[in-house]
């Protein structure tokens, strides 16, 4: 399946390998969930605060479907 991914700028150089753009298209196996996508991006769980599928916050085991827009937002907690 093909999905569109937006990754927050702050996370680009935390991915492995590093990402160079905040918007990318990826082909993933059918049935991939949020946790699987973070694995594929090489992003550590501790750095991620929210993942949205089509603008809605989704848990780690939420399934991603073909054509979904997925956004990866960092965990931030500074004051």
């Amino acid at each position, binding site marked *: 399946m093909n999905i569109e991914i937006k990754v*927050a700028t702050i996370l680009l150089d935390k991915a492995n390998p590093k990402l160079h753009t905040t918007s990318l298209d990826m082909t993933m196996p059918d049935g991939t969930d949020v946790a699987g996508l973070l694995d594929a991006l090489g992003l550590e769980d501790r750095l991620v605060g929210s993942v949205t599928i089509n603008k809605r916050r989704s848990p780690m085991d939420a399934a991603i479907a073909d054509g979904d827009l997925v956004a990866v937002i960092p965990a931030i907690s500074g004051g």
Partner: protein
Amino acid sequence: MDDVPGLLESLTQAAAEREEGCERYRCVTLDDVSALATRYGLATRQVSAFALEHGLLPLRYVKNIGTIGMSGQARLLQSRALLVGAGGIGGTAAELLARMGVGTIIIADPDVYDETNLNRQNFCCSSALGLSNVDAAAERLLEINCDVDVIRHRIAAASENLPGMLASVDVAIDALDSIDDRLTLQQACSDAGVVMVHVAIAGTALQVTTIYPGDAGLKGMLPPAAAEGKTQGIEVETGNPATTPVLAAVIQVQEAVKVLLGTGNTLRGKMLYLDLEDWTFEFISL
């Protein structure tokens, strides 16, 4: 407020007409409010509130009135806000609450200023190093607006002391700096029936949401933060430059004012994620 014999006559005598936009107001100056507070043995907040109740406008609030109205200003003066954290976000939030005229500001923070705070914390300056954040904020707030009653707690907010701090509070401002403390505050606010306005920052990014009692709020964050002992986010690596906490506090206090006045659309049920570096502006449904 109960009638105070002679006060209305004194205020009316002191008031002067002023045109502001398309409206004309009868305004009383800070000097008049202060003098009448002394003469009648009242706090200036009581005199200001009494004036507003009787259609007289303390001049200090004249630039608020076109947006929130006389009744809104009176309501803010009667409102109580709990500010949890008086650091980068909290210092600016405290000042904005005072300038808006929120009548009672309860501040909780255990820290004292050190040099690493000088880049961003509103009341931190060279001469304040080593002073309590709460004391420095309280003293400055009283200089900014003598109508404000500042209640100081030089302690860390925790599940055992938050119920007391939240008693009779109308809104809570989350200006903390760790995920688990924020979850503790959310739970305490929910238990107390108090709306909490959450903001967090990292580098040039910020997030904000307004959480009503019973809402999921921060509990749906990934991964389940408390369970994994995750207390801080990516700000450990990005730091917190001077600009981001100020913008975060601006958005946060405007949310709090809307909550207090029951106006506008709040960020309930959604989180705004904003990055000033590239103008990412993302609304997340929670």
